[in-house]
């Protein structure tokens, strides 16, 4: 038998290309393209009075300047509200170029096209826009106070008000023997992939067709949006996703203004046009996430079991809300984690502020949700004087209770039903990995030495693989090579490897004979996109199904040729053979030749399929229920998401003097069902943890009161270098396969980042002896908290 590929740490097929400088990212394409630069608003809130381009005309190489007045038809309308929701009563989206008002620093006001980016920037700098500056709404406090409005027709700055409940939480909490209330806050951060956004468009004047490349997480989404906005048939638009230098959520947002403006310009000018975002633009003009304020009320019994839980939170959605309520809805449902909450109520307001838009960033509302729940668990343990792990264990949904229905609706409009997981087993693994039971002794000894050390623990459940569907196409060429296509895109997850592993097992062909293409609408036009840890679940399953369809066809054709029953055949190393008689075999390439009856021979192999070589005179060459060629196409469309889970523990040491925070150990137990490639999954966890470290300890969006982002560069936005990471991320896996898909897969892409704010807050609180309620935390903030708590204790002692 061929060695099984599923579950093996196969080296990535992508790597050679990327390691030798032969990757093709957006800005590596279109050497012949002219380039754009955007004039962006320097004000967070202002009326546009005038746009004077006179001085720009002196720039040699200037080709065109577009403002709102140049947008016609659907382009003149606001960009789409991608995910409408009944609770989103006041949805507002921006125009591709601002019409008469700007609502965040960085909003596009004019687009310049010139021979190259240098000249485009020269011209953009010379365009004078006159503004009447309006007072901005910055931060959740200002948004909630609503003394000023972002949009005059949106009362209270409230885009959406959402309530969901199961049972009577207020009554359950009121009747509980123990009650606690917590107020928490998480600040903004962002995906910040190393490659920013980018778009290249070519308009074929002869064929009246558009071909565009974009650094996106959804080529089919961009295609549909561009077709609508440019008034083109879907069939006249091709969208190709080249190599993408990281996404982490920000590139699922679409269409960006540039994704419709660049093709518009390409069509108007008859020349290829390219936009490559620079780093500052990425900070101020793409999207952020995370910003929330939370109020939790919880009632529990003497054992720390939840009786009632109420979460109220306020979500900062920025100046517009094109991606709808996905992030806060995810927070509102995933807050439940691995626990049975008793009666539950969640209520949120999604609020406008004069800041850049908020769309999902890896984790997508879950880090905030886990922060809320895990801080609550720690508070309960502290209140009752119980072990923190013990309190969690007592609230776990048990494996025998799976599937577990929360009686709520998830972000995809489907019921929130956990399909699998063994939370007690996962926690047991984590406790063992981190040495939970020895911790008290270690901490006591460290304290005796004057060291401040703390351990945090956080658990989460992550809905992955949301619908509606993905598809896969598998074709066997006459060379025996296998071409695989799926519509969703790749941003470094190793899809070309993982999907090839699936096909290798299904078809019995070597990895080297399989080529996987993602995100190219020419190859597979039906798809949703890469987000919500869904690629492996959705496309992995679809490709498996497509490969099985291709396999059935292979066996049928081969059975005829070998005069055997399909059930007696097996495929090994690209050869179809009769089980138990190794001499009788036929290659996949020959099967592909035979599957396509030919009139013309063009090489030795194809002679075998010509009409004088094959077929029966009394049978149609291609049967009624048959098609020429060896192809399989299938779709995977589950009734609901599959729920992965994980538990993290971190040990930190805080400097008694400087309050510097050092990570001593970081441990992960992760359950994403069946692993396709454990090496890739570990890599995903590593990367997620690193983003979590950044989000917990370093990264924030420092807006000043006028709405200027003061740290819009990698110099000032502190993304972790290796020096900020622990020497080792210790990982253990638990595999509880999902019963929902053919391979038992659950998503893994976002996992690593989800519990970070919670686990670091817990660890630092444990080290310091007071509870953190706001993340991220810097050494200087920790220092101030220490001082405040010391002063508070002193006051308490005196009174």
């Amino acid at each position, binding site marked *: 038998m061929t060695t099984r590929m599923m579950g093996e740490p196969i080296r990535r097929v992508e790597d050679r290309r990327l390691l030798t400088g032969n990757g093709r990212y957006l800005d590596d394409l279109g050497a012949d393209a002219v380039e754009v630069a955007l004039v962006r608003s320097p004000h967070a809130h202002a009326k546009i009075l005038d*746009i*004077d*381009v*006179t001085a*720009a*005309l*002196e720039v040699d*190489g*200037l*080709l*065109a*300047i*577009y*403002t709102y*007045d*140049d947008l016609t038809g659907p382009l003149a309308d606001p960009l789409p509200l991608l995910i409408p929701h009944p609770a989103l009563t006041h949805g507002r989206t921006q125009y591709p170029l601002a019409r008469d008002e700007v609502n965040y620093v960085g909003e596009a006001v*004019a687009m310049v*096209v*010139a021979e190259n980016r240098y000249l485009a920037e020269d011209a953009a700098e010379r365009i004078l826009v006159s503004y009447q500056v309006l007072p901005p709404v910055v931060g959740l406090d200002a948004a909630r106070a609503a003394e000023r409005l972002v949009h005059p027709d949106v009362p209270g700055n409230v885009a959406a008000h959402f309530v969901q409940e199961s049972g009577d939480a207020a009554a359950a909490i009121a009747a509980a023997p123990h009650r606690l209330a917590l107020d928490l806050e998480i600040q903004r951060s962002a995906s910040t992939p190393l490659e920013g956004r980018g778009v290249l468009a070519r308009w074929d004047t002869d064929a009246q067709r558009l071909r565009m490349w974009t650094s996106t997480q959804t080529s089919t989404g961009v295609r549909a949006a561009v077709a609508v906005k440019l008034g083109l048939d879907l069939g006249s638009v091709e969208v190709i996703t080249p190599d993408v230098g990281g996404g982490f959520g920000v590139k699922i947002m679409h269409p960006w203004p540039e994704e419709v403006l660049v093709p518009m*310009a390409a*069509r*108007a*000018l*008859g020349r290829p046009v390219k936009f490559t975002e620079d780093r500052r633009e990425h900070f101020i003009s793409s999207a952020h996430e995370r910003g929330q304020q939370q109020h939790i009320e919880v009632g529990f019994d003497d054992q720390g079991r939840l009786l009632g839980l109420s979460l109220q939170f306020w979500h900062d959605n920025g100046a517009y809300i094109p991606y709808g309520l996905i992030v806060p809805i995810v927070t509102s449902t995933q807050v439940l984690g691995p626990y049975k909450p008793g009666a539950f109520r969640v209520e949120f307001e999604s609020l406008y502020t004069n800041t850049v838009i908020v769309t999902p960033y890896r984790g997508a509302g879950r880090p905030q949700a886990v922060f809320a729940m895990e801080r609550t668990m720690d508070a309960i343990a502290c209140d009752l004087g119980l072990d923190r792990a013990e309190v969690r264990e007592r609230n776990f949904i048990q494996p025998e209770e799976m599937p577990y229905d929360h009686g709520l609706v998830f972000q995809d409009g489907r019921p929130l039903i956990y399909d699998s997981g063994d939370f007690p087993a996962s926690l047991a693994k984590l406790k063992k990995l981190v040495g939970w039971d020895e911790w008290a002794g270690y901490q006591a000894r460290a304290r005796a030495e004057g060291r401040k050390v703390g351990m945090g623990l956080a658990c989460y459940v992550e809905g992955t693989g949301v619908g509606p569907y993905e598809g896969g196409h598998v074709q066997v060429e006459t060379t025996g090579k296998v071409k695989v296509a799926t519509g969703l895109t790749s941003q470094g997850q190793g899809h070309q490897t993982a999907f090839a592993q699936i096909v290798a097992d299904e078809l019995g062909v070597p990895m080297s004979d399989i080529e996987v293409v993602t995100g190219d609408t020419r190859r597979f036009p039906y798809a949703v996109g890469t987000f919500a840890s869904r690629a492996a679940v959705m496309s992995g399953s679809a490709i498996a199904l497509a490969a099985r369809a291709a396999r059935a066809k292979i066996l049928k054709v081969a059975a005829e040729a070998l005069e055997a029953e399909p059930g007696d055949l097996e495929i090994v190393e690209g050869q179809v053979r009769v089980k138990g008689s190794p001499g009788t075999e036929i290659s996949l390439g020959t099967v592909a030749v035979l599957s396509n009856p030919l009139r013309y021979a063009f090489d030795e192999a194809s002679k075998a399929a010509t009409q004088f070589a094959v077929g029966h005179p009394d049978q149609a060459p291609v049967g009624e229920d048959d098609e020429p060629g060896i192809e399989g196409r299938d779709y995977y469309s589950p009734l609901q998401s599959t729920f992965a889970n994980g538990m993290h523990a971190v040990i930190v040491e805080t400097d008694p003097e400087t309050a510097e925070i050092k990570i001593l150990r970081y441990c992960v137990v992760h359950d994403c069902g069946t692993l396709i490639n454990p090496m890739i999954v570990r890599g995903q966890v590593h990367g997620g943890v690193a983003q979590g470290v950044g989000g917990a300890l370093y990264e924030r969006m420092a807006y000043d009161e006028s709405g200027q982002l003061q740290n819009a560069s990698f110099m000032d936005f502190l993304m972790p270098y290796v020096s900020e990471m622990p020497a080792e991320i210790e990982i253990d896996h638990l595999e509880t396969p999902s019963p929902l898909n053919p391979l038992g897969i659950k998503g893994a892409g976002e996992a690593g980042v989800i519990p970070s704010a919670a686990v670091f807050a817990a660890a630092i609180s444990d080290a310091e002896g007071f509870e953190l309620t706001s993340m991220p935390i810097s050494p200087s903030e920790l220092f101030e908290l220490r001082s405040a708590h010391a002063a508070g204790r002193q006051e308490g002692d005196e009174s």
Partner: protein
Amino acid sequence: MKLAGEAILHAPLDRVWTALRDPAVLVATIPGCERLVATGPDSYDMTVTAGVASIKGSYAGTVSLTDLPEPHTFLMKASGAGGPGTVDADVRVSLTDTGEGTRLTYDADAAIGGVIGGVGQRMLIGVAKKMAGEFFSGVDDVLTGNRPLAAAGEQADSSAAPAGQDTAVAAGQHPGPAVFTAAGRGKPPARPATESFLAGAVFGAATALLGVLVGARTARASHNTRTARRMG
């Protein structure tokens, strides 16, 4: 695309009117105008070269005038076509005496086709306004003596202005076309940098056509032709 503007010319209305009716003045002052040909009563052919960005190219156009009886105001219908695209414009022009000089106002409504239609309205308007400014300042320079006409005259193409035009143009009978060229104009080194830049953009086309139409109206006066001949 709508475009409106005005210029103050430092000369009495009658002199402005006269200058604007002088094809030799026009051919020398319209940015990018290389050739101006009377083809009939109130109708002209002209060639304008534009040198900016996507608008770069040579445009051949025609101009005809209506609403002429009204004093000091008229409507020009102009159309032009070149590699980068097409222009069709209606331009209303009027002159008023301000006491110290003459105020010229123009109000254009243009339909732009082809690539130049795709470069953005503000850019088109910006270019057109700059070219209009350039044109009127050129005319003003002629009126105030800062630009000797002789210099422009040296550039006229005498061979293209045969005898008999005097009558033809003046009477509107045009047995042969009256041709005015700006032979040296297209050569960048001969022109100041600002002008060479301005020459051109789209509405070099419109502005130039605007100028042409003004010229066309005036070309019926015999002394214009004489000027042209003298220039030759």
